[in-house]
C-alpha cells in the first residue's frame, strides 16, 4: 500500500468509511443479523429448556414375582419418587425384552420369596439391571435406586423393630447451586459459546469473502493501511457481539432466573476482552484461509467445537488426560467460562476473576501480534 502520499489525507475518514461499509454489509445480510440475534435466542431456549443432565421419571420395569404387602410398599416408594416412572411386568423375560428394545432404562426384580428373605439373608432377594449405554445417566439412575432402596429398607426394618444402622452417615451441603440444577451452569457458559460464534465464525468469513469475491485486490489499491483495514473490519463485529452478549445476559436473568451475583462492570470488561480475543482469532483464520469454505470449516473446528467441548462448559477439564488439559489452555473460552460461572453463581471472587482475565489479556496480546505479522505479509 502506498502509505507515504496518502496517510495525511484524513485517516479518520478512511477508517470511518471502512466501518460504515462493514456495518452496512452486516445489516444488509440477513444471515449476520440472524446469527447475532436469532441464534442467541434459539440457543438459549434450546439449552435452557432442552439440555438437562437431571434425569426425572426414568422408565423402569418392575417385576414382582410374589406380590404382597411388603412388595407393594417398596413399589409405592419407587412410584412416589420423582426420579422413576415404574411399569409393571409379569416376568423377568418380558422386562428384559423391553430393556433390549429401549422401552425401559432399568429393571427392578423382586424375586420369588422377597418378603421372607428380606431381612434374613446377606444377599437381598432383589436384582437390579440398568442400561449402561449412557454411562452418566446410568450412574445417576443407580444412585437414585440406591437412595430409594436404602430409605425404604430403613423404614421397613424399623417397623419390624430391627435397626439397620449405618456406622457413618454423610450429610452434603452444596454451595452456589443447592438445587443442583444444570440450567444454572449451562446458561452462563452459553454466553461464551454465542460470543465465540459471532467473534470467530462470522468474522473469519468476512476477510475470506473479500478474497473469494476478488474485492480484496480493490481494497489493496486504496490508500487504506493494514491497521485501518483491520480496525474497520473489527469495530462493527465487536459492537454486534457485545449487543448480543447483553441480550443473552438479559434473557438468562429474566427468562431462566439465573442469579447474577457478580458485578455488571466485571462482566462487561471480561466479555470485551473475550470478544477481542475471538475477533483476533477469527481474523487470523480468515487471513490464512482466503476461502470461505476453508474459513468456515477451520473456525468450526478450532473455535466452536473446542468452546463446546474443551472449555469446561459441559465436560470437566480436570478429568481430561494431561495432554488434552494442556490443549485447553489455548482455548480462550476456557477462561471465559470460568469467569462466567463464577460471576453468575458465586459473585466477585477476585482470585478466579483476575487469573482468568489475565490469561485472556495475554492471549489477546499474542494473537494481536500474530495477526499484525500475518496481515502485513498477506495484505501488503
Amino acid at each position, binding site marked *: 500500500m502506498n502509505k507515504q502520499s496518502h496517510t495525511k489525507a484524513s485517516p479518520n475518514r478512511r477508517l470511518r468509511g471502512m466501518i460504515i461499509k462493514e456495518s452496512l454489509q452486516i445489516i444488509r*445480510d440477513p444471515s449476520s443479523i440472524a446469527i447475532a440475534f436469532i441464534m442467541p435466542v434459539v440457543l438459549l431456549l434450546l439449552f435452557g429448556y*432442552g439440555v438437562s443432565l437431571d434425569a426425572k421419571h426414568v422408565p423402569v420395569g418392575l417385576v414382582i414375582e410374589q406380590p404382597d404387602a411388603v412388595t407393594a410398599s417398596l413399589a409405592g416408594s419407587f412410584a412416589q419418587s420423582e426420579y422413576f416412572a415404574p411399569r409393571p411386568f409379569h416376568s423377568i423375560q418380558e422386562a428384559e425384552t423391553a430393556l433390549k428394545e429401549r422401552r425401559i432404562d432399568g429393571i427392578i426384580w423382586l424375586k420369588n420369596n422377597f418378603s421372607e428373605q428380606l431381612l434374613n439373608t446377606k444377599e437381598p432377594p432383589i436384582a437390579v439391571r440398568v442400561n449402561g449405554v449412557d*454411562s452418566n445417566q446410568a450412574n445417576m439412575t443407580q444412585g437414585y435406586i440406591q437412595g430409594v432402596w436404602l430409605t425404604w429398607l430403613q423404614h421397613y426394618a424399623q417397623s419390624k423393630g430391627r435397626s*439397620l444402622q449405618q456406622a457413618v452417615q454423610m450429610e452434603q451441603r452444596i454451595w452456589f447451586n443447592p438445587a443442583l440444577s444444570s440450567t444454572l*451452569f449451562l446458561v452462563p457458559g452459553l454466553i461464551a459459546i454465542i460470543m465465540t460464534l459471532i467473534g470467530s465464525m462470522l468474522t473469519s468469513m468476512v476477510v475470506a469473502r473479500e478474497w473469494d469475491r476478488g474485492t480484496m485486490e480493490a481494497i489493496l489499491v486504496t490508500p487504506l493501511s493494514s491497521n485501518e483495514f483491520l480496525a474497520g473490519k473489527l469495530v462493527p463485529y465487536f459492537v454486534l457481539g457485545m449487543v448480543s452478549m447483553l441480550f443473552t445476559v438479559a434473557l438468562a436473568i429474566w427468562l431462566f432466573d439465573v442469579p447474577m451475583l457478580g458485578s455488571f462492570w466485571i462482566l462487561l470488561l471480561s466479555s470485551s476482552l473475550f470478544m477481542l480475543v475471538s475477533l483476533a482469532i477469527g481474523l487470523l483464520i480468515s487471513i490464512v484461509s482466503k476461502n470461505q*469454505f476453508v474459513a468456515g470449516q477451520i473456525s468450526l473446528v478450532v473455535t466452536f467445537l473446542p468452546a463446546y467441548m474443551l472449555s469446561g462448559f459441559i465436560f470437566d477439564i480436570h*478429568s481430561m488426560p494431561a495432554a488434552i488439559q494442556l490443549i485447553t489452555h489455548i482455548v480462550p473460552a476456557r477462561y471465559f467460562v470460568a469467569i462466567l460461572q463464577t460471576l453468575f453463581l458465586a459473585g466477585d471472587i477476585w482470585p478466579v476473576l483476575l487469573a482468568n482475565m489475565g490469561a485472556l489479556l495475554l492471549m489477546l496480546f499474542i494473537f494481536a501480534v500474530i495477526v499484525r505479522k500475518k496481515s502485513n505479509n498477506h495484505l501488503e
Partner: protein
Amino acid sequence: MLQAIFALAIKEFLALLRDKRSRLVLIVPPLAQLLIFGYAASFDLNNVPIAIYNEDRGATSHEFISRLEGSPNFEIIRSIHRDADIAPLIDNKKALIVLHIDSRFSANLQKNIPASMQVILDGRNSNMATVAFNYMRSILMDFNHEWAETHGTGRPPATLKIRAWYNENLQSRWFIIPGIIGLLTLVVTLMVTALSVAREREAGTFDQLLVTPLTPLQILIGKALPGVVIGIVEASVIITFAVYWFDIPLRGSLGSLYLGLFLFSLSAVGVGLMISAISVTQQQAVLGAFMFMVPAVILSGYATPIANMPEVIQWLTYINPLRYLLIIIRGVFLEGDSYALLFNQYWPMAIIGIASLATAGWLFRKRMY
C-alpha cells in the same frame, strides 16, 4: 442421462478436492477432533481435588481418609484446620469438595453411636457435584459394610448389587465416541453440500449449469452424490479409529450400521442442499448449515439425554436425523442390535431423507424459473 449425472458428480468432486486446503480440511480436522474429543469428552471424573478438614484424632478417620487417597477419583490437595479455610478453597475452585470430620467421629464409632461427616461441594457445575458425591458415597458404603462386619455392630443394610448392561463398567467413552461418529459425519456432509450450490451461485456458474441439458433432478442427484460418498468414507475412517484405537466394542453387524449411515447421509445431504438452494452467498450457506447443525447436535442425545427434555422439545427431536443415527450407532456398537430392533430408527430417517431431497429439488426448480 446417467452419464450426465456422473459427469456433474465428478466435477463436484474435483471442485472440492482440487484445492489443497479444502482437501486437508476434509481429512485432518475430523481426525484431530476424534482424538481430542475422544479423550476429553467424558463425564467420568478423575483426580477430583478434595480438601480434608479433620478435627478427629482417632485412627478410624485416618483409615477413611486413606481410602480416599487410594481412589483414582480423588486427589487430596490439602489438609485444613480451621472453619475459615473452607470458603476460600471452594470459592477459588482449588477444591471441589471439602470433607469435614468432627472431633467426636472415632469416639462415637467406638461407642456404637452413628458418626457423621459433612461434605461441602462446589455446585457451580451441578453434574460434577452429583458425580463426585456418588463416588464419595460408594466409598462410604464400602467402609460401612466392612465396619459392620468386623465389629459385629448390628446388621448393615443390605446393599443392592446393580448390574449395568452393554457398558458394564459404565465408561463415558463408550457412550461418547460412537456419538462423535455421528457428529462428525453430520458436520462434513452438511458443509460439503451446503456450499456446493452457493459456491456456484456466488461465482455465477450456477446459471451456466442451468442452461445445460441437465434437468433439475439430475443436478440434484449430481450435487447429492459427493456428499453421500464423502460422508460415508469419512464415517468409515472414524469407525476404524473407534474400534482399533479406542477399543470400543463393535458387537453388531457392519451392515446394519452402514444402512443407518447411508440413510442418514441422504437426509443430511437433503438438508444441506435445501440450505444451499436458499442461500445466495457462501457465507449464508455456512451460517445456515450452522444454524441447522447446532440444534441438531444439542437435540440429538449426543451429550444430554432426550428423555430429560420437556415434552415439546422431545417432539422436535423426531425431525432430527441425528437422533436416529446415534441410537443406531450406539445400538450396533454396544448392544449388538439387529436390523429388526433398529427398524424404528431406519424408516424415519428414510422419510426425512426423501422429504428434504424433494424440498431441495423443489427449491432448485423454483429458483430456476
